[in-house]
């Protein structure tokens, strides 16, 4: 690839790529997103490639196999989508590949059994599937479509078009204004107005001449969230392009992509993308001959959730421990090496090229007035259709979880959703029917079904006591214990606290102590009040956002599920059947078939019985490890 010297060469390259594209060439896109990878998608992809090699002579046009980013429908992985047939295959295994090659790629027909079916209906194309219908893939437009390791594929699909538009047709101030008017708010969870942040940084850089820096926060530490991972792995150029546009707008010439250590594939894909972009001259000096320089560096995190905090990320980049410092001064005033610095989440950066492309006004037509645009969620937990979804803001929680998510599978009943990770809250599902006044409804227009109920946007979610957060949306059913989940988040933060300030370092431990007691059925109702008071001390007294938001899961769960806490403390019961010390395992004499597998695997050797006769558990010795429940072929182990 040779370096592109100016915009006409860039457009030429794009036209050449578009012209070379053969719409009749069969393409099989194999999802290598995190979920499908865990299901062995790599083997599926390799099997396709070797199968095609074997069948070389059988095609009019040799098909193309693309390993792409996340297709989104994780619970149906491994996903393979075919074009131009427009078919989506689900649950594909390596053994299915020869049939797909024969039937679909050669004969052009569908393999019926691999199509997604639900409630008796079979769906051919992804667009028809209910999971995808209510979504609006804008930021994820290229994820699952382009080969992230091929910049030409990205350019053909529109990458760097917005950058060219900004650099050549707009002034820095016009770009700034566009982002401001678009209403883009930080997608990492803070929801801070991005345009305002950019404007402040640009002004500070002007008033204090010297470098300004941009940082992409890819520390995505919330457990259960993988939105940024999907973008970085599936469409790395979106982030790169967004940062170059931002650099142009603010007069910054150097940026840092900070990617958490636990995402080696994201690091690799960004590294390759950067290399290829540099080789083409799209990153570096004199981009597209405009005289604008922008250099981008890739940095790895080192395993610290706290480094998702702005000042901690800066400390980490400077080669120090990730200990936050107080703000003000804010990073836009004094950030990296005391220079004006803008830190935005990966998803926020990935929105920028689309905002420039469609214009601020069109962007504001998406979502709701105070929360414009779309949001990517990882919809996971006890939900039938789990995966990565992108929806316009203001969609109702009910539509998201039931319409797209398909509701709770099996016997469970919907109980709550957990949003915002360890900084967020646990919202009871009943709230989904309550319309928040924060949402401006169109006057005199019938409210469509998707708009009824709790609106998923920054402000409406904040009113419930939770936060919309970075996008992790975990659905809980009645087999999930709220006390246990609150305890889980405290344990998580307890391990991740930097330890600098007392309220967080010791307060988390103190709160955890209370929750440990509750989980054991100990403690008193007065302890709940003490816990709320201690939580307030962390909210007020902690130095940084980690400590200040740490009490959220506990406080919201007490607010909405006080009865569950009292059940643990007063009745010594765990209604969900989760907390170890409050449940017992027993073997149902009606169901047990005497196979003895449970006794064979029991680590405590506390199950006794004779073959073909009833087996019993010694409840005093039982540690409720769960092995017997796992191995029992007839589900005879009861939890009480």
């Amino acid at each position, binding site marked *: 690839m040779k370096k592109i010297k100016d915009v006409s060469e860039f457009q030429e390259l794009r036209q050449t790529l578009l012209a070379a594209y053969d719409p009749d060439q069969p393409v099989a896109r194999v999802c290598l997103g*995190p*979920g499908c*990878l*865990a*299901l062995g998608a790599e083997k599926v992809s390799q099997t396709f490639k070797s199968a095609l090699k074997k069948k070389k002579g059988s095609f009019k046009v040799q098909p193309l196999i693309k390993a792409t980013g996340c297709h989104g429908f*994780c*619970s149906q*992985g491994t996903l393979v989508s075919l074009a131009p047939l427009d078919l989506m295959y689900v649950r594909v295994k390596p053994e299915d590949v020869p049939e797909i090659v024969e039937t679909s790629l050669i004969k052009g027909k569908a393999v019926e059994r691999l199509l997604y079916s639900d409630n008796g209906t079979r769906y051919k194309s992804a667009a028809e599937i209910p999971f995808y219908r209510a979504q609006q893939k804008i930021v994820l437009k290229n994820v699952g479509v382009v080969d992230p390791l091929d910049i030409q594929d990205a350019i053909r699909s529109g990458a760097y078009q917005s950058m060219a538009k900004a650099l050549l047709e707009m002034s820095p101030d016009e770009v700034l204004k566009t982002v401001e008017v678009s209403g883009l708010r930080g997608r990492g969870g803070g929801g801070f107005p991005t345009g305002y942040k950019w404007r402040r940084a640009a002004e500070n850089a002007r008033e204090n001449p010297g470098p300004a820096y941009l940082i992409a926060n890819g520390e995505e*530490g*919330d*457990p*259960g*969230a*993988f939105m940024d*991972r*999907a973008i970085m792995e599936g469409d790395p150029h979106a982030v790169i392009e967004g940062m170059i546009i931002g650099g142009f707008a603010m007069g910054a010439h150097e940026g840092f992509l900070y990617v958490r*250590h*636990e*995402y080696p594939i994201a690091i690799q894909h960004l590294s390759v993308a950067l290399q290829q972009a540099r080789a083409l001259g799209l990153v570096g000096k004199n981009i597209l001959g405009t005289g604008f320089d922008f250099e981008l560096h890739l*940095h*790895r*995190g*080192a*395993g*610290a*959730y706290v480094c998702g905090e702005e000042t901690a990320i800066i400390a*980490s*980049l*400077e*080669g*120090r*421990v*990730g200990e936050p410092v107080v703000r003000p001064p804010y990073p836009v005033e004094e950030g990296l090496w005391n220079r004006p610095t803008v830190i935005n989440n990966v998803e926020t950066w990935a929105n920028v090229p689309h905002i420039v492309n469609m214009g601020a006004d069109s962007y504001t037509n998406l979502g709701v007035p105070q929360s414009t645009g779309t949001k990517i969620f*990882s919809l*996971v*937990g*006890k939900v039938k259709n*789990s*995966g990565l979804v992108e929806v316009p803001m203001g969609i109702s929680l009910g539509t998201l979880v039931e319409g797209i998510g398909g509701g709770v599978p099996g016997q469970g009943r919907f109980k709550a959703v*957990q949003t915002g*990770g360890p900084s967020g809250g646990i919202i009871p599902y009943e709230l989904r029917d309550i319309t928040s006044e924060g949402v401006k409804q169109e006057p005199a227009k019938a409210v469509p079904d998707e708009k009824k109920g709790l609106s998923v946007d920054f402000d409406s979610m904040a009113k419930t006591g939770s936060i919309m957060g970075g996008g*992790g949306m*975990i659905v*809980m059913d009645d087999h*999930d214990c709220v006390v246990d*989940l609150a305890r*889980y988040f405290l344990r*998580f933060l307890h391990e991740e606290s*930097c330890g600098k300030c007392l309220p967080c370092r010791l307060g988390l431990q103190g709160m955890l102590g209370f929750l440990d007691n509750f989980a054991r059925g100990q403690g008193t109702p007065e302890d709940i009040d003490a816990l709320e008071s201690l939580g307030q001390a962390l909210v007020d007294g902690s130095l940084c956002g980690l400590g200040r938001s740490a009490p959220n899961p506990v406080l919201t769960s007490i607010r909405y599920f006080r009865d569950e806490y009292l059940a643990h403390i007063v009745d010594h019961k765990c209604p969900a059947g989760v907390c170890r010390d409050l449940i017992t395992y027993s073997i149902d004499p009606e169901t047990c078939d005497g196979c003895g597998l449970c006794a064979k*695997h029991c*680590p405590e050797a506390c199950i006794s019985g004779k073959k073909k006769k009833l087996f019993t558990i010694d409840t005093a010795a039982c540690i409720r*490890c*769960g*092995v017997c429940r*796992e*191995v029992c072929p007839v589900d005879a182990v009861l939890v009480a």
Partner: protein
Amino acid sequence: MKAKKPTKPKKPTIEIILERYPRHPQHLIGLLQDVQAAFNYISSENLNLICDYVGVPITQAWSIATFYKSFSLEPKGEHEIKVCLGTTCHLKGAERLIEGCERDLHVERGQTTGDQRFTLDTVKCVGACAEAPVVMVDNNYLGQATLISLKDQLKKL
């Protein structure tokens, strides 16, 4: 079919690793990452070499090496078992899985077995939530892991 000889990349020396980076404190963490990846831990010799190279006091290098979870000052085991304790994995019983590992390997989470074969660790989260609970054995994913399937995986090693 032509037999392909698998090529293992030659282990770099500390000098080669150092040369990858300019001499500036901002590369302290990157250097430590590379050393950890190459040698499975960070020895005191290498820690001293790195902090001299980038120009930071040893106290700073020490606080970094002990603050961040991805660095270990003791050699890690031959095989790394990482049980995901993400929220979804937790709801689907990850805690039981790691307890099972602790029982079977006779170590606590974060520790390495006496024979240096296994290091048991937790990770939050790997992003494969639809397959919860997930356990990573070296670089392989074990989705919808059960106590039994995990035991089988360990037996294979």
